């Protein structure tokens, strides 16, 4: 990757039952995707308090991903 290309830092909130399971399945299927995501497992995206999203941006996330 060249120096000037943008490589975002993404924070993801993954629902244990669907998106986290899907991320597991992506692994089992050996799907390849960019390594820019860091994940937080929650038992439901309903758990995601709006403040978590703001906190994520505050900590330097370029984007927040919620999967649920």
């Amino acid at each position, binding site marked *: 990757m060249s120096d000037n290309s943008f490589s975002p830092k993404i*924070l993801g909130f993954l629902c*244990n039952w669907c998106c*986290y*399971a899907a*991320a*597991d399945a*992506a*692994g*089992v299927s*050996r*799907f*390849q*995707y960019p*390594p820019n*995501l*860091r*994940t*937080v*497992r*929650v*038992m*439901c995206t*309903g*758990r*995601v*308090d*709006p403040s*978590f999203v703001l*906190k*994520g941006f*505050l*900590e*330097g*996330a370029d984007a927040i991903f919620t999967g649920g």
Partner: protein
Amino acid sequence: MVTNADFLALEGNPGNFTAKLNIRPRYIDADACTACGLCTQYCPKHHSDPYNEGLSITRPIHIDYAQAVPATYYIDPSTCMYIQHDTCQICVPVCQSHAINFNQKPELRDLKVGAVILSPGFGKIAPEVLEKFSYGKHPDVVTAYEYERMTTSSGPFLGEIKCFSDGRHPKSMAFIQCVGSRDLGCDNGYCSSVCCMYAIKEALVTKEHDPEVDITIYYMDIRTQGRDFDAARERAEAIGIKFVRAKVADVTPWENHLKLTYSTLDGQHKFDSHDMVVLSVGLESPKDAKGISNTTGIELNNYDFCKTETFTPLQTSEKGIVVAGAFQGPKDIPESATQASGAAALASIILKTQRGKGTESKEYPDELSITDDDEVRIGVFVCHCGINISSVVDCPDVAEDSGKMKNVTYFTEQLYSCSQDSQEQIKQTIKDQKLNRVVIAACSPRTHEPLFQETLKDAGLNRNLFEMVNIRDHCSWVHANEPEAATDKSKDLVRMAVSKAAHIQPLPEQTVPVTPKALVLGGGVAGMTVALTLAEQGFESVLVEKSSTIGGNLKKLKNTLAGDTVASYLKTLTAKVNKSAKIDVVTDAALAQTAGFIGNFNSIIESGKGQEKKEQTFDHGVIVVATGGHEHRPDLYELGKSKKVVTQQELETNLAGRAKGRAPNSIVMIQCAGSRGEDLNYCSKVCCNHAIKNILKIKEINPDSQIIVLYRDMRTYGFAEDSYLEARKKGVIFIPYEVDRRPVVTSQGTNVQVDFFDSIMQEEVSMTPDLVTLSVGIVPDGTAELSKMLKLPTTANGFFLEAHVKLRPVEAAVGGVYICGLAHAPKPVEETIAQAQAAAAKAAIPLVKGVVTVDPIVSSVEQDNCIGCGICTSLCPYGAIIMEKVDKKRKARTISASCKACGICASRCPTFAISMGGFTNEQLISQIEAFGNKVVYEKVEA
């Protein structure tokens, strides 16, 4: 669990058998073996690996596959140099844990048992049968089992598909169906039921590997009768997999290709060449079927499978001996798993009086108390998962990096954190290092969290003092080509987990008592079987039937394909239900309202009509949904417009009567009328058998009757194929039609005309039969309302969806709710009965246990901070938060057993009064802070 054993003899009576076993030596002490694999590396002898269908090499000392249970190596005595030739023994000094023991001798063991469950599986089709397809003569002809291993990414070729002849990637492949099934040449007249589906799966997998490969499936009928299986076929067709209806005569080598000779329906002989040929071999009866029969006295059917009857599908001919799986007849995994549960129900009826006796409950050490004042001591364990993680992620770097973090007092790497020896290491480390939080960086908490939590409990730690990081499924596997980025990501995830772990608190275990009673919805054969199976295990149930009498669809059926009379069975069954003191039958009834949770439901049943109408309230611990289905009546093919057009069910009723002309001279049957793409988008599984059943009845009454069956695929799977053959022998003409060329039925006056394209004669045909019979399919009854009331998901076609097709085939996603019968999917009566017995087995589990254990990650309300606004109550999708009066103030309270730990309440509570165990604000915020790298590396180097 006794492995490596032979079943020699069975003595005694039901409830008091003695099973005589010969336990063959493993030559390895299972308790000492750590499954490190060093012995295999040093073993000098090679032999072909039966686990990989002989496609790879293994050694006499080996383990079949990484996940084998028990996870212990063993020595194959037939090739071991020491056992055969008294030499070698290299493995003995190599084994660091001194687990190898050549002094082990075969052990004869007598087991006292009350019941026997036979599940020996299926056998293989003899290689002679495959010879005409050049199997064994040309290396590029393989069986589907071999091909399965070839395509598997963990298989001998890591999923690379190559021709054995010259190593090229095949560009053209053929699957030949019905090899060793539906084949009187090898005396296997039956259909193996699963091969069409597995061939489609293997073809789809092949296309995923190489989208350019050209695949043709040569078939007689595509039998994808399972729920939603037709969708797989459609998907296969959509991506270009070709389906050719043909009988393949032979396969011969042709230059570096293989030449297939086949004949199509219209009588033409054709040739085609392919690079590779996969034989969809059927399921044979198990090799030792006759031996089992001799040992136990059970009867076999004419194909050497276990003989069972329609209404007792899991019962062998011998009392106290039940059967499950492919030995009962060829079947797929979901149905085998269902039968296994059903067999367990039947066995536990026999063992009822002994329930709970002789059990040992596991003892855990006292839990260490942990207070806020205690120093946080986190141990980090980084798993290599063999090479699954370590071949991509730099595990030592990840472990060392974690060691620099605040609160981390210990870190290490492990080859397999989940292996028995690693578990012991973790336990010991917790004690030695006085750890009070454990972080394991390995695979998914969805599969392995319970295992590690058990380890924590064994070490005296509360199981919640644990956090798992998925550096395999979410790192090494998905960033396989970017090792540095995958390592960075792993470090970040571990850092975030460590940060969170520092804030984890021990959570108390909660148990809730269970009301030992079931609510069974639906009084058909499924519901009645559930209630009776529970009653025989000692549990009460309320059986709710919407009509005025129990019996369901059985009331409309007269006989079965196997020739049983339905009426007498129904009479016996209803009498048993009515007589049972444990079954409370409520007719003309429906579920009006239900509240509560697994173990503690409370439901209102409305019953009676008019003046008699009343409401009854029941407390119960579980709900079994067996609400059934009914014949679909499509507004097609002149049904309901012409008296000469009837459904199979109507025909069955007529045939059982005495009316003259009930079996007229000329009949046309149309299969899939309204199904598979018309009104209904699915196959109803039973209609082909239903048609054959009626045909044989007609032929009995009027042997001269001319019957033409227009069909898409005759799906007389399993042993029903015999009846299909019988119908053809009796002169019934079967003509397939294509979906874009469905037959057309018109009526004029009393005449009815059928126009169709005869694919055998290749011409348009028009005829005016005496009767047209439609095979119309099955639709579920009222699943929409019940789905809302019980929060049960349904399929696109309105059938209730199980929690997992293979792992939890009769359980709903909602705890304490079970599904069986037509409400789950269309199925014949023997499958419904087995499934109902399975549902009863699963429903009995909480009833037997008497308590439900609640996962402690649920929400809890700090009532001091609660202002009683009620936002949480209104938002909770599970009705798990109630408002109560405490000192005249409204306060929220969580019903733990109902709570699914989603956390919606916690994220919406304006006063932060609700906390989620294991996912507190504090924990998640610190995890997010660690994402931002702030709280890292605060520890001062010692």
